[in-house]
C-alpha cells in the first residue's frame, strides 16, 4: 500500500540520520530523490507522507524502551520538516502555506490520537520543541548560517510569520480543546526557543498572538477555579502560569505593562497575587523612588508626568459607548451620562467567581475600557494643555467617573473603583492622575449619603491588593500611604471599619 511504501521511505530516512551528519550531501540527495518520486513535491502525497511519518514516530515512541532513545524517529521527522521549510523551491506555492500544511497535518494526527487511551503528549511536544529549536538555531545573526543569499533573505522576511503561524496553531492546541495536552502546551508557549523570540520580534509583531495564548490559559484557569478545593491539576497549571509570568516580568516587563488591559480582562477574579505580579511590572532601566517613603509626593516625581505605552487601545472595545464617552469628555451632559450608565449593564448575568460574589450584572470589560480610555485622554490632555486641566475636580474626566460612581449600583461602584486602582502601577501619569481622583473621591463632600459605601468599596478594593503576598504595586503603596495620612478623613473612625475588627486591626497596624 501507499502507506507501507511511505513507512519504508521514512524508516530509511531515520536510519540515514543515525549514520551521517545532517549536513552531509547524502542527506540532500535523499530528499531530492523523495521529491523526484513525487513523495514530497505533490501536496496530497506530502500530506500523506507526513501523516504516515508522524504516526510511525509516535508509535515508535510508545514502543521504545523508556530508558533509551525514545525520540529518534520524531527527531528525524523534525529535521526533515526544517530542511524542507528552508531549502524547497517555493515557486508554485508559498513557504507560509507549507508551514500551515505541516501544522495542519500534525494537528490532524494529534487530534485523533488525543482521544485514545494510549495518548501521550510527549512526542508531539518533542516535535514542536524541535521545530522551535531548529528555527531558533538558523535565525541567529539574521540567518547568517544560510549560505544562499536568496534563501537567507526569504527566511529573514519569513521570520515573523514563522512565529505567528506557530502561535496560531498553538492556539488550536489549547487546553480547552485538548486537555490531555495541557501541560505540554504550557511548556510550549513558555519554551526558551519560542517565548523570548516572539516577545522580541521587531515592532512587537508577535505580541498580539502571544496575548491570545496567555488569554487562552487564563480562560482555562478561570473556568476551573471554583470556590473551595481546586483540583491538583489546575493548581499545578496555575503555579506554572505564575512562574512563566514572573519570567516575562523579568525579561520583557513592557509586554505585561502594555498589554495589562487585555490581561486584566481575562485574569480570574480571585487571582490577586498574579494580578499584582502583572501590574507591578516596571519598565527596564527605570529607577523608581521608594514607595514606602512617607514624604513621597507624586507631584515631585518626574516619571509621573510620562504617558505609559499601551499596545491595545481600549477604545476598540467601547463599541456603542465610544461616542457618548468622547462627547461627554468634550461637553458633559446628563443625557450622555445616562446613556453611558445604561450601556454598562449586561443583558445576561456573567458567571464570574470572585471574592464575595458569584456573578456580575455589569460588563467588566466595558467598565475597564471606559475607565482606561478616560485615563488615556486625561494623560493626553495633561500633555497638550496643562495639569490644571485634568487635576481638577471640575474637569469632565473627573466628573464622568464621579457621576458614574455616584449614580451607579453597588456593583458598578465596585467595578469602577477596582479598575481605577488597577491603574495605580509604576510611576506614570495614569498612576498619578487616578491617585488624585481616588483621593479626592474618598474625602469628597459631594457624595452625600453615598460616601460611606463608596469609601468602604474603595478600601475593599485597595486591601485586596495589599493583604496578599508580595509583590505590591508602587502606585498602590503610595496611594495607601496617602490615604492613611490624609487629614480630612480619619479612616479608623469610620463606622464600617469599627464594625469589622479584623479590618480595623490591619488598618491600625498599617
Amino acid at each position: 500500500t501507499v502507506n507501507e511504501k511511505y513507512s519504508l521511505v521514512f524508516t530509511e530516512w531515520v536510519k540515514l540520520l543515525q549514520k551521517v551528519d545532517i549536513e552531509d550531501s547524502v542527506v540532500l540527495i535523499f530528499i531530492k530523490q523523495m521529491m523526484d518520486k513525487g513523495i514530497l513535491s505533490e501536496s496530497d502525497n506530502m500530506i500523506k507522507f507526513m501523516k504516515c511519518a508522524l504516526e510511525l514516530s509516535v508509535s515508535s515512541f510508545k514502543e521504545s524502551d523508556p530508558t533509551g532513545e525514545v525520540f529518534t524517529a520524531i527527531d528525524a521527522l523534525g529535521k526533515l520538516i526544517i530542511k524542507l521549510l528552508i531549502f524547497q523551491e517555493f515557486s508554485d506555492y508559498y513557504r507560509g502555506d507549507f508551514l500551515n500544511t505541516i501544522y495542519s497535518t500534525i494537528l490532524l494526527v494529534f487530534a485523533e490520537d488525543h482521544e485514545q487511551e494510549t495518548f501521550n503528549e510527549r512526542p508531539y511536544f518533542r516535535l514542536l520543541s524541535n521545530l522551535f529549536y531548529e528555527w531558533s538555531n538558523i535565525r541567529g545573526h539574521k540567518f547568517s548560517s544560510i549560505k544562499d543569499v536568496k534563501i537567507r533573505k526569504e527566511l529573514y522576511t519569513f521570520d515573523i510569520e514563522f512565529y505567528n503561524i506557530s502561535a496560531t496553531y498553538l492556539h488550536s492546541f489549547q487546553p480547552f480543546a485538548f486537555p490531555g495536552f495541557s501541560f505540554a502546551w504550557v511548556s510550549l508557549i513558555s519554551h526558551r526557543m519560542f517565548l523570548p523570540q516572539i516577545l522580541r520580534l521587531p515592532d512587537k509583531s508577535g505580541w498580539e498572538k502571544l496575548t491570545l495564548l496567555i488569554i487562552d490559559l487564563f480562560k482555562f484557569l478561570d473556568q476551573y477555579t471554583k470556590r473551595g478545593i481546586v483540583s491538583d491539576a489546575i493548581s499545578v497549571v496555575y503555579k506554572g502560569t505564575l512562574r512563566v509570568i514572573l519570567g516575562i516580568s523579568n525579561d520583557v516587563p513592557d509586554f505585561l505593562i502594555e498589554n495589562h488591559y487585555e490581561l486584566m480582562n481575562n485574569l480570574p477574579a480571585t487571582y490577586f497575587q498574579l494580578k499584582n505580579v502583572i501590574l507591578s511590572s516596571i519598565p527596564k532601566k527605570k529607577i523608581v523612588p521608594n514607595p514606602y517613603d512617607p514624604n513621597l509626593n507624586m507631584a515631585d516625581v518626574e516619571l509621573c508626568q510620562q504617558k505609559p505605552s499601551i499596545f491595545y487601545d481600549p477604545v476598540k472595545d467601547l463599541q456603542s459607548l465610544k461616542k457618548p464617552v468622547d462627547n461627554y469628555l468634550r461637553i458633559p451632559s446628563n443625557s450622555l451620562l445616562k446613556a453611558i450608565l445604561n450601556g454598562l449593564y449586561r443583558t445576561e448575568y456573567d458567571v464570574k467567581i470572585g471574592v464575595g460574589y458569584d456573578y456580575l450584572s455589569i460588563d467588566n470589560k466595558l467598565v475597564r475600557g471606559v475607565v482606561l480610555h478616560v485615563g488615556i485622554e486625561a494623560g493626553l490632555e495633561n500633555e497638550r494643555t496643562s495639569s490644571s486641566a485634568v487635576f481638577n475636580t471640575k474637569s469632565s474626566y473627573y466628573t464622568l467617573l464621579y457621576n458614574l460612581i455616584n449614580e451607579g449600583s453597588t456593583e458598578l461602584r465596585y467595578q469602577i473603583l477596582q479598575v481605577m486602582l488597577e491603574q495605580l502601577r509604576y510611576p506614570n501619569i495614569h498612576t498619578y492622575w487616578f491617585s488624585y481622583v481616588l483621593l479626592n473621591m474618598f474625602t469628597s463632600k459631594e457624595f452625600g449619603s453615598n460616601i460611606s459605601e463608596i469609601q468602604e468599596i474603595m478600601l475593599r478594593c485597595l486591601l485586596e491588593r495589599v493583604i496578599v503576598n508580595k509583590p505590591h504595586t508602587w502606585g498602590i503603596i503610595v496611594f495607601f500611604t496617602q490615604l492613611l495620612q490624609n487629614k480630612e478623613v480619619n479612616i479608623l473612625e469610620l463606622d464600617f471599619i469599627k464594625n469589622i475588627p479584623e479590618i480595623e486591626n490591619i488598618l491600625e497596624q498599617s
Partner: protein
Amino acid sequence: FGLKALIPLIKQDPQGEKNGQYDHSMTLGADLSSMLYSLGIPRDKQHHRVLDTFQSPWAETSRSEVEPKFSIPDSFNNISNVLQSNVTPPCFDSIQNDQQRVALFQDETLFYLFYKHPATVIQELTYLELRKRNWRYHKTLKAWLTKDPMMEPIVSQDGLSEKGSYVFFDPQRWEKCQRDFLLFYNAIM
C-alpha cells in the same frame, strides 16, 4: 462587594477553605522568593534574562539544564590539527597508533578526555598516559591522584596502605587540590 467579603482571606481559616471559600494559594498567593530563586532571579546578585534558558514552567520538571541558543562562527569549525590529529574532526581509533599523540597533551586535557569519553579507545589511552606521569586512578573515588613531592608517605605495618599527602584532581571543581589521605594500595590502579 464590601469589606466583609475579605474576612475569610484575612482569617485564612483552613476550615473556611474546605467550606467552599477560596484557594489561598491563588488569592493570597505565597512567598515568591523560592520560586524567583529557582528561576534565577536574581542570579549572582545581578539581573539576567531567564526565558532564554527556561527549562520548564515547573521547578519539578526542570531537573537538567537545557541547551540555549548559540551559534558557532564558521572559523571555529573544521579547524585542522586539533588534538594533534591529521584527520578533521579528530578521532582516536587505535591504542598503538595514537599513543604518541596523547603523550603531547597537558594533564587537564587527559583528564577531560578520560571523563568525557567512557568505554572508548581514548579513555584507555589517557589512562595509560596518566599512569606514565605517575598519576594513579582510585577505583572507589573515581578520581586521579599523585604523590605530593614535598612529603614522603608513611607506610603501614602490614604494608597494605600508606598515609601521606597527595594531589588529587577534582573533576567536579576542575582543579588540583592537596589532601592528606590514607591510601590503600588495592584501591588504586
